[in-house]
């Protein structure tokens, strides 16, 4: 018994040392996966890919049923919108042509708005942190790189945290912290420019914290659309992030803070698009 006691304390000590070494290693190499880690996440990812098919089928089935209930009303609204869109398309085509010609005139090839879409599927969520990480079934093989923005059709949902061969981990905007801020502006037709940083997520309010840095006139209104801006050097400009829910002064009364409701539904993410920016991205990969 005495021998056993001594042995178990010995093992416990080794365990603590291994824990500290691993913690230190992963804290230093955040985002860079080592080869064994890549192999493990690829294997698990490909098995999850298989299981995901029937599970998605089942959950789709139930959401389809609930959607069926308000199909009629939705159809009415959509018909109206469709008619409006038809005229918009012609307008857009004209503008696009004009834009291209103007670009050629000033010899500007890639705009900060342009990107290559890489379509993917969410295959799992982290059980430990639902609202912080999801895994998608696209990796280096498909051209995904670290720090690329990830969007759904509704808006931005996060950025690529680490990549393996055929899977990658996406850090969601609801799990962003001070280390990875997004530079953003308010999309407006007229009026002053508003520029600021998305600093994090308020879990109680269920909204993103948008600190306004520069505000050249024009009051912020509720419901205004917040989009990503090119100034951070990381994401293409014009990706919708969310709508302003509330504007408050910060704790020192010097700047304003807006609460932004994410445009994408953060609890149900299935199809995603990884945004491969055409414009060169800053190498250091950090936002100002």
């Amino acid at each position, binding site marked *: 018994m005495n021998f056993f006691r001594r042995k178990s304390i010995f093992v416990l000590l080794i365990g603590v040392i291994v*824990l500290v070494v691993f*913690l230190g290693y992963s804290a230093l190499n*955040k*985002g860079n996966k080592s080869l064994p880690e890549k192999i*493990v996440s690829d294997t698990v990812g490909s098995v999850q890919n298989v299981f995901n098919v029937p599970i998605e089928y089942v959950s789709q089935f139930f959401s389809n049923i609930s959607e069926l209930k308000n199909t009629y009303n939705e159809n009415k609204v959509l018909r109206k919108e469709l008619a409006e869109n038809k005229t918009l398309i012609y307008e857009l085509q004209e503008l696009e042509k004009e834009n291209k010609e103007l670009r050629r005139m000033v010899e500007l090839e890639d705009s900060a708005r342009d990107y290559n879409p890489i379509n993917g599927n969410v295959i*799992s969520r982290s*059980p*430990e942190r639902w609202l912080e990480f999801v895994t998608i079934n696209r990796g280096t093989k498909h051209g995904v790189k670290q720090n690329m923005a990830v969007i759904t059709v509704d808006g931005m949902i996060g950025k690529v945290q*680490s990549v393996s061969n055929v899977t990658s981990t996406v850090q969601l905007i609801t799990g962003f912290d001070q280390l990875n801020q997004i530079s953003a502006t308010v999309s407006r037709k007229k009026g002053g420019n508003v520029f600021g940083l998305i600093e994090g997520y308020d879990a109680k309010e*269920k909204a993103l914290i948008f600190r306004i840095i520069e505000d050249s006139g024009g009051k912020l209104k509720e419901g205004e659309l917040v989009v990503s801006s090119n100034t951070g050097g990381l994401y293409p400009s014009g990706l919708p992030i969310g709508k302003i829910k509330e504007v408050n002064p910060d704790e020192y009364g010097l700047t304003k803070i807006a609460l932004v409701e994410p445009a994408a539904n953060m609890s149900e993410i299935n199809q995603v698009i990884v945004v491969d920016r055409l414009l060169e991205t800053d190498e250091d990969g950090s936002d100002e």
Partner: protein
Amino acid sequence: MKRLFIPLILFLLVVLEGVAIGLLPERLLTSSYLIVPHWVFIALALLSIFYDSYDTVNAVIYAAVFGLLIDIVYTDLLGVYMFSYAVGIFVVHLLKRLLIENLLLTILMTVIGLMVTEVIIVAAYTLADSINNPVQSIVIDRFLPTLIANLIFLLILYPLVTKTLLKLRKQYISDF
């Protein structure tokens, strides 16, 4: 082939833990409750109680290996699950020496082990992320829902695997 049976099941549970979250109703996902599925832990606790004898620690070794797997696949900090699962299962292993193997005492042992594990995990993440959540909100939002959800999983798993594990144990002992 029979030796691969247990690791294969555990691997499958690791894989399904992440996929199964997609099946949870949306209301639960957006609420402040956080249910962490510890299916692997539950399976390991049953393994420790019904498969290991008093002086083998197979389950503890499996706990370290599959804890590391969870760390790699689902989180960005390595070692937290590995350490906490191993300690939690070791607690179950020690308790097993004192108690007998029936449903109620199995639940008791698993709950104690799971609580130890959860405390270590939350402590490690709090230290690493320097988030200061008040203890009360952690208990109400995370510990209790997690405990209840995993107990349900234990009650489902218990009748399915105990007989098989006891059979496997007999084979394991007779191999030596």
